[in-house]
């Protein structure tokens, strides 16, 4: 190579730069063409009124409805990365394009008209609407909050539609842990679920390497830890039980299992789902839960259901779906 003349080396370099720049440009243009336009609105005919299972259809990223088991699904909802609906409202989280990552939280009414739009840092993770539809909460993953730049942390917001008051991060809520006031900047909250009184809520907090189930009070603005190792709580419609994911293994491929905690006895019951569940489960009724699992046959994810009492085999509810929410 040393014998290459200066002119030849220059020619080689210029050719390579042109070829590689052309290749890069070509790929970028191809990718630009291929990506779907983000943030499609709901079709005018699609409303959240008829009963059924509403969920995110992983094929197009839009919200769909499945009227009943075996019936064909109706598509045409808004594009969301995470979705939930209850009462009079729906919550749709969308990742905005670009870096650093931002998420748009869209509050919609039953006709899927936009009521409020909030932009927060991070990528969509959890969305929940209280049974009345008046209080909403969402969680995003954010990077760069800690000295380990690659680590993720969570940010959870609560929006009260009665007053319009938005708490962008509930991190500052006074927390009682093990009977004492807990102060640490490493607290992270995620996965809020609301009680029927639109005041009490449950969530996960992680601090000093452990996760805890916390019970919070919105009016009093306080929270206390109830129990260790219970993530992404979901309160049953009757308010008596909490479904949650419990970390049962250090195996990174299958760390969690789905459990139900009886709030009266504080006894927990493992459910019959044998796979690791990384989702905030949704109650279809007082005895059945729905949740997303990694999809089969190349689908991004599938929605499954399982009885809440630990019996019965899990059932495939909606192939190619995530973010289930039942409307009755």
């Amino acid at each position, binding site marked *: 190579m040393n014998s290459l003349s200066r002119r030849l080396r220059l020619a080689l370099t210029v050719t390579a730069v042109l070829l590689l720049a052309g290749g890069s440009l070509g790929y970028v243009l191809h990718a630009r063409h291929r*990506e779907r336009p983000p943030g499609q609105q709901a079709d005018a005919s699609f409303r959240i009124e008829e009963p059924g299972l509403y969920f995110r259809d992983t094929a197009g990223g839009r919200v769909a409805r499945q009227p009943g088991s075996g019936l064909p699904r109706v598509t045409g909802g808004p594009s969301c990365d995470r979705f939930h609906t209850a009462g009079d409202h729906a919550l749709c989280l969308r990742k905005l394009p670009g870096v650093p990552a931002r998420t748009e939280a869209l509050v919609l009414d039953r006709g899927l008209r936009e009521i409020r739009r909030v932009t927060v840092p991070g990528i969509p993770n959890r969305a929940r609407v209280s049974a009345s539809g008046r209080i909403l909460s969402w969680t995003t993953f954010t990077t760069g909050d800690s000295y380990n730049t690659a680590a993720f942390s969570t940010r959870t917001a609560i929006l009260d539609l009665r007053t319009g008051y938005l708490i962008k991060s509930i991190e500052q809520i006074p927390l009682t842990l093990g009977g004492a006031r807990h102060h640490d900047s490493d607290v992270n909250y995620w996965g809020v679920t609301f009680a029927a009184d639109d005041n009490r809520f449950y969530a996960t907090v992680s601090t000093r390497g452990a996760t805890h189930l916390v019970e919070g009070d919105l009016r009093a603005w306080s929270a206390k830890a109830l129990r260790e190792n219970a993530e992404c709580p979901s309160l049953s419609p009757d308010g008596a039980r909490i479904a949650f994911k419990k970390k049962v293994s250090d195996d990174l491929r299958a760390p969690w299992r789905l459990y139900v905690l009886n709030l009266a006895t504080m006894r927990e019951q493992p459910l019959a789902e044998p796979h690791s569940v990384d989702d905030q489960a949704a109650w279809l009724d007082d005895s059945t839960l729905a949740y997303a699992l990694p999809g089969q046959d190349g689908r991004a994810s599938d929605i499954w259901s399982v009885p809440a009492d630990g019996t019965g085999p899990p059932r495939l509810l909606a192939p190619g779906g995530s973010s289930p929410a039942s409307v009755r």
Partner: protein
Amino acid sequence: MYLAANGRPDAPPRTPGARRRVPATVLALGAVSLVTDVSSEMVAAVLPLYLVLGLGLTPLQFGFLDGMFNGATALVRLLGGRLADRRGHHKRVAGAGYLLSALSRLGLLLAGSATGAIAAAIAADRLGKGIRTAPRDALISLSGPPETLGRSFGVHRAMDTTGALLGPLAAFAVLWATADAYDAVFAVSFCIGLLGVLLLVVHVPAAPGPAAAAPPAPRAAPPRPSVLRDPAFRRVLYASAVLGATTIGDAFLYLLLLRGLDLPPALFTLLPLGAAAVYLLLAVPAGRLADRTGRRTAFLIGHAALLGAYVLLLAPVSPPTVVGVLALLGVFYATTDGVLMALAAPALPVAGRAGGLAVLQTGQALARLLGAAGFGAAWTLWGSGPALWTAALALAGALAAASRIMPADLPATSPTAPEAP
């Protein structure tokens, strides 16, 4: 290979005036590093988002993937140095490292959502980085007269840092243009990485430059030199390790700044850019200064600047503190990173240079890892204030020790590489 260097038609004439110019090989290697850093920092900037958002990995899994190969890199670096020293295959070994990293982007592109394949691609990238570093630095050190090595490394590090600063910008531009097509980032990064390999193949001569290798130096080809037996080199190694062990890691400094000022966490990503910009500006002047006033002095002054940053953070943090800490950090890098290589290289025989530099880099990296871990533990146990006091006292002690351990001054023009008339 060595013989070929003698007959290179474009070798700069070895006149005193020409020595003012930065050797062409150093510029070429700088260009290779610049391009390669654009390529690798592009991927590094988007990888966390891609894995967690695009592929639905949990952050837990991502942390595991990310930290998985850090330990192995140190060992690979030693291996790269060893391989390069054998019959002087610096360029080939470095080239293999660059190529491996470039190909790893293709791996990411083709891996899709297969976690195992992604892990393999990340491993290949780290492997490539580990392999190439020591041979490349050896090539730089062999490409110019020993008395301007500080400047040569300064030029290289400035170009390298430029690439690191441009990489994330390039990635964001691609994401912006394609509405978040991560695969486009990988594809562009692959093309840029290939360009880096090509620049190396075409513009960097296979044999070390004429200044060091051409004269039939007595130590040019000993059987297998054990660099650790050289007392001068050993003292450099010890001093850099002692100082490294009292370095607490930039991330902690940035965190202290953010906490002290109650700044939004989004700024966390901007602080390193500030320090890198200062480093970029000062790398060449600091290298020249080190050549003139002694590299040992420059290296110690750099650590004194780091001590200055600690001390600044011990006082209540105000906006000028941020500027001061970032500037001092930039000074620290400019006067220590390349300067250490320039300091140690003349003490190493040509045939053991890549291996020796690898030992030095690995020793320093491991010591710094230890320092950061120790500081993290102290922070958790005692809180940030006492931990920082401890770190400052330890660094002051290490500085005193290093100034005694470090050889008075390594001969800038050692008998290893005599100047031809």
